[in-house]
């Protein structure tokens, strides 16, 4: 695709990601957001009485899906003009879920109830980034190593392989979500998930194989050989299993499978680049072949540990 045509699109997407989901902000509370790990920041329309605002009894805060567990406040810090309050909690907040905050008496009249949540698009994006690098399926989850070590020999192969894997992963991820939500869950047969997911995977691979053979034989000649390898691979089956255990919705599943596939592509490409160099290097005979590949992969894994603290949105 044309790079210039993409630019405004990307900009628009970026803007969307950066827009906070302000939601309902009319009235007394102008702005609310998560601050540091254990902090919620509120901005009021007019100055509040410090004595009222600093009284913990006026606050009720809980996670939206756990109304019974009230979160305990440690401190309320007011700004100098008494218009911004930062609520500090005893424990760090789980910022992926929405938090319901209700404040009594602060504006002199009724109780204010509102929810604080992160930007949903930002959350989706964070799933993608997490699957791509932070929890890279090869280097931090150690999945799909057979294919990884078997095929990461040449860059061109690695690219083709990675693209086919990404396609299959997205297709199976989305289909598995559909089956899980509309067949397995309503009929209470979630214990059959392994059988259903592996069946769907084989079916998708077979379908892609047949369709590609008829529709685009040239593409099939370059990618077809990889399809056989796809079936017996743990990366593919891991995506639906993670989706099922985390109860992801459709968009989250899509992002997860896209990130997982992209992460696999990235890992294959990195490894094949090193393999091409290794071919020319002088390696001790005891380390030739798999041992040196494992050592290199270990170094990549250590490098990927560096992403573990990464936090976006």
């Amino acid at each position, binding site marked *: 695709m044309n790079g210039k045509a993409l630019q405004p699109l990307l900009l628009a997407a970026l803007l969307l990601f950066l827009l906070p989901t302000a939601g309902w902000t009319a009235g007394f509370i102008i702005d609310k957001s998560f601050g540091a790990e254990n902090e919620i920041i509120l901005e009021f329309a007019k100055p509040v009485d410090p004595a009222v605002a600093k009284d913990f009894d006026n606050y009720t805060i809980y996670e939206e899906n756990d109304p019974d567990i009230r979160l305990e406040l440690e401190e309320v810090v007011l700004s100098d003009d008494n218009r911004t309050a930062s609520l500090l909690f005893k424990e760090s907040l789980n910022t992926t879920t929405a938090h319901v905050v209700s404040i009594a008496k602060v504006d002199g009249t009724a109780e204010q109830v509102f929810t604080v949540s992160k930007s949903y698009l930002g959350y989706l994006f964070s799933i993608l980034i997490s699957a791509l690098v932070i929890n890279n399926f090869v280097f931090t989850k150690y999945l799909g*190593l057979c294919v990884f*070590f078997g095929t990461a020999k040449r860059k061109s192969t690695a690219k083709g392989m990675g693209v086919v894997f990404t396609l299959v992963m997205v297709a199976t991820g989305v289909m598995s979500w559909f089956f899980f939500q509309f067949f397995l869950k309503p009929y209470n047969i979630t214990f059959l998930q392994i059988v259903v997911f592996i069946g769907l995977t*084989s079916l998708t691979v077979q379908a892609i194989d047949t369709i590609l053979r008829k529709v685009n034989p040239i593409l099939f000649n370059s990618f077809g050989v990889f399809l056989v390898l796809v079936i017996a691979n*743990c990366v593919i089956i891991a995506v639906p*299993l993670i989706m099922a255990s985390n109860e992801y919705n459709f968009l989250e599943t899509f992002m997860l499978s896209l990130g997982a596939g992209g992460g696999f592509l990235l890992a294959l490409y990195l490894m094949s680049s090193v393999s091409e160099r290794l071919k020319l290097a002088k390696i001790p005979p005891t380390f030739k072949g*798999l041992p040196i590949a494992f050592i290199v992969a270990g170094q990549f894994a250590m490098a990927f540990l560096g992403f573990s603290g990464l936090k976006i949105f």
Partner: protein
Amino acid sequence: MANDKTSFQLVANGILAENPIFKLALSMCPAVGISTTVMNGFMLGVAVLFVQVFSSVTISVFKNVIHPRIRIPTYTLTIATWVTVIDLTLAATMPDAYAKMGIFVKIIVAFAIITMRLEMFACKEPVSASFWDGLGMGLGFMVGMMTIGFVRELLGSGAILGYDVLGFKPLLFFILPSAGFFVVGLMMAFFNYIEIVYKRSKGLK
């Protein structure tokens, strides 16, 4: 070729000559991922042993009614069934150990070693031979996992099976997740080295 080996030879073949982890280099994911202790290796080894033996026997029993063209889907579904059985059993009886192994019990369904044994052995051989072959492969996997777990636990936390034997922690690095790659790589290199020295001592090549 059918059944010219004794049951003992079949089991030994799986453990030594065709060890799934060190010789065939299949099913590496758990060998790197969760082999931090001997116990973890043992638990997953038991699960794989169970799935391998039962799948081999099942396929061997039904080998005459499976049409060759649909044999791969049949293998997959057979394995998936037995994996479901062991997955639910472990989750119900040993919740702690099961939680440690995480997704890897379910991932057994995609282990290349099991499908390969069904394709190469169980679909041609009689039931008893398939049983012994499956047992050998499962034990070979278990031994491989436990060896890696042994090295990592001993060097990483100075303990074996949770008991402190060294009294100090030689190399904390080995208990970290990414060390799995290094341990497996170094052990493979070690076995290669022994093989080279052995061949040289015999005056071969």
